[in-house]
């Protein structure tokens, strides 16, 4: 990353005097940083493309290391003849030498074909497309909520650090952050879903829908199923955002510019919102994009406890065979999401803080 940043900074330094007239340094800045930004963007995009390609290649070899024979797993416990086992191998292409399998895989992958799942007998892309919206609905909703909650409470806590509210919030966030999500999920099921004592069972115990509903009733049904898993995820995840936001803001709290702002007579709320928070956002933005990249991978434990039909559960099912095409495809999608989000974050930094990428 530094290697990429340095040339663009150099480029900016070189392009600067040429692109701008003498003595117009102040006004020339946008033009100069514009060119620099373009180079910065190109560098980042190139890096991302290389990473994606690397992921495509490694995912093939990485999962060949998983112990276990998919054919043996799929035929296990059933009457199968030796001929049938051979037929399976042929169908899956496992009878070919490794390099042939690899070239076939690469050739197909470049045309967008990630192969056919061994156990589900459907194209991997179809299987992923089927579960992706479910995962995004769950993790996306949770992401928006825990990020908003984390940033909101984090800034509050930092601004009034050391006071009761801060201590309460950080304490609670840390406690929830350290709770295993599946345990919290089960607890919520027992209390809020089955009902305990005076608390009635308010929410369904699992799944994404009851089935057989359409239109608005369907939406309500899905939202109803969504509540507990989202609450679990938000409870476990918001602490991280809160703590990062809080510590970043605390670092800024002593800044002279805040004293200046206050000296101007600005109201405290405004000093915080207009001056302190924007400067403290960089670590939080990084975290937000890291989290955003992770939303695609789903959350295996929460998906399992609440029987959510998402990618996390699919990955688990694929690994246990191992269903190589599906595992590879999912791994690629997960990695791609992280790479894309990190690249987006990289692209966003210079806009947030002009010092980045110069």
């Amino acid at each position: 990353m530094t290697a990429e940043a340095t040339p663009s900074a150099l480029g900016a330094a070189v392009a600067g005097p040429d692109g701008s007239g003498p003595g117009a340094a102040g006004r020339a800045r946008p033009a100069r940083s514009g060119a620099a930004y373009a180079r910065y963007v190109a560098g980042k995009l190139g890096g991302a493309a290389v990473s994606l390609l690397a992921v495509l290649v490694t995912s093939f070899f990485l999962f060949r290391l998983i112990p276990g024979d998919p054919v043996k797993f799929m035929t296990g416990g059933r009457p199968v003849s030796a001929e049938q086992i051979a037929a399976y191998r042929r169908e899956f292409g496992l009878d070919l030498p490794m390099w042939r399998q690899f070239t076939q895989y690469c050739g197909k992958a470049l045309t967008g074909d990630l192969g056919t799942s061994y156990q589900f007998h459907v194209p991997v892309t179809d299987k992923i497309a089927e579960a992706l919206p479910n995962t995004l609905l769950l993790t996306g909703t949770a992401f928006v909520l825990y990020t908003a909650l984390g940033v909101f409470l984090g800034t509050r806590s930092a601004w009034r650090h050391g006071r009761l509210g801060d201590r309460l919030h950080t304490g609670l966030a840390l406690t929830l952050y350290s709770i295993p999500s599946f345990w919290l999920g089960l607890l919520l099921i027992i209390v809020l879903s089955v009902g305990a004592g005076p608390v009635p069972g308010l929410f369904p115990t699992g799944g994404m829908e009851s089935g057989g509903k359409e239109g608005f009733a369907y939406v309500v049904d899905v939202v109803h199923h969504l509540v507990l898993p989202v609450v679990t995820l938000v409870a476990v995840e918001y602490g991280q955002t809160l703590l990062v936001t809080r510590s970043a803001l605390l670092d800024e709290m002593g800044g002279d510019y805040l004293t200046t702002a206050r000296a101007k007579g600005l109201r405290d709320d405004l000093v915080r919102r207009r001056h302190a928070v924007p400067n403290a956002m960089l670590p939080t933005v990084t975290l937000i994009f890291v989290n955003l990249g992770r939303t695609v991978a789903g959350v295996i434990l929460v998906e399992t406890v609440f029987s959510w039909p998402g990618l996390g559960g699919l990955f688990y099912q694929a690994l246990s065979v191992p269903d190589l095409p599906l595992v590879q495809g999912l791994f690629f999608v997960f990695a791609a999401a992280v790479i894309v989000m990190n690249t987006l974050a990289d692209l966003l930094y210079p806009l947030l803080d002009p010092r980045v990428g110069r």
Partner: protein
Amino acid sequence: MNTQDQHGRGRRGRTGRRPGRTRLLAAAGAGALLLASGLAAPAASAAQQSGAAGDGHGDKVLTVAVAQSVDSLSPFLAVRLLSTSVSRLMYEYLTNYDPKDAHAVPGLATKWESSPDKLTWTYTIRSNSKWSDGQQATAEDAAWTFNKMMTDPGAATANGSFVTNFAKVTAPSPTQLVIRLKKPQATMTALDVPIVPKHIWEKVQDFSKFNNDKSFPIVGNGPFVLTDYKPDSYVKLKANKDFWRGAPKFDELVFRYYKDQDAAVAALRKGEVSFVAGSPSLTPAQAASLKGEKDIHVNEGPGRRFYALATNPGAQAKDGTKFGDGDPSLLDERVRHALFMAVDRKTIVDKVFQGHAVEGQGYIPPRFSSYYWQPSAGQELAYDPAKAGQLLDQAGYKKNADGKRVGKDGKPLDYRVLCHATDPNDKAVGKYLQEWWGELGIGVTLDCLDNVTDPWLAGKYDLAFDGWSVNPDPDFVLSIHTCAARPQTPKDTGATDNFICDKTYDQLYAQQLAEYDPAKRADLVKRMESRLYDLGYMNVMAYPNAVEAYRTDQIESITTMPSAAGNIYGQDGYWSWWSAVPADSDGSSGGGTSTGVVIGIVAGVVVLGGLAVLFAVRRRATAEDRE
């Protein structure tokens, strides 16, 4: 500047608070929505709960929580227990198994007979079975199904082994199906092949990719018709009112996928599901917690699996090449018997399975009564450590000064036991083996691996934890111990279990496969079991029970298999779901609705009140700040 800022402050102060208020409003709104959806819950789920009279149409719904998702709904591809169970409900098979003792009873075929040369089987197809689209199910459908499996490798994916010995299948008339065999095969009344409607399936292009899950309802002729399916979520079936054996009592059957069994148990407690499948079995803790519960019945039936310890007999391929590194001392029958006699099977059942298993003896579990075999008094290798010691002494493995058994070559006996890292039972039994065999002077190393397949297929083990699920027709579990099941060369994969190859056993196997008289065949099978027992390569330690549970306020009665005491989910046949009678009571967790609403409202008021207080406090705080 100053005034401007003051003005600004005033102005911004107000507008500045407004977002705060909007946020608060938004939060309150979100909270209200959350509560509303919570309140919608009791109303909605109560409808489903109440005696399983769901959907508000007064339909009786039976919801089954299963721990497995569907791999494919195509009967040509499906291999998972859930999917094959669903196939059973959607399509008739030629024959079915009696719920009492699993003998063959009519299915799509009303009767069957074999020719004197044992090579031709003629089935009479019933004329009172209709496909759900109104067309008659005929012998032509059956012939087409079998022929497709014989000619299209894609259609042979799941059940191809059933037709490998078929020479020709024809339908001379709509009620007559003729199967010509290459050589005699006694399993012809146990063909677990769903017969599909030709007029629907002949349009399918690629059988290896067609999953039968796009257009609903799916045409079938079983007791239920599949009407809806969401991957990783649920499978819905409606009762087939025209089913020839009689309509099921429940109107709808739903298999709902619960990835976590604790959550499934919670759903049963709540009444959201009527039944929790015992595959895998409920844990002893789950069973114990449900036993005291009102309106819940825990059903414990004999399982169809055996749990055994397999011994490496010196792996050998069919071409005669020896491979692997099984301990040569195990080739001595006395050593194997000594190991057998130093295993206390009762302790394993009591302590490891906590009583949820039956002590093992013969190869085939007792639920298959016609094939169940027990060793005679003189034959039995009962728990007797002293006698085991004597046997080892006789075999030439005497204890040395350190108390270790040492062979003539001076090497101490030390066995590697292959165990599944994912199975806690393996580990627990392994500990006992270390203790029991340790007292005999034999060292035990447990190799607990995620993947036991690789060392297993390579013959690199001394003993290994083993287990198979047994079908009503035992042919397959018997075949995996024949010489022919071994791999062609060490590089190939055979169908063998643990490389056993015994002439006597093989002769009996061939005889039973050609024996069409059920009683005589059962006798041959028992002799095979006896031979297997004497060889001492397979120590069947236990038959784990199937433990499952259902709500008695939703299901009044349901057939188990075997009917005297058996399991419900995963039967060989559709008896359980077809026979299940809904309970009259529509009560269940009834009162929940009104209390739910009241408590929901109270909670809502408390939350909103709390928000209001918070807001007021904040306003005062900002006011103070301003001053």
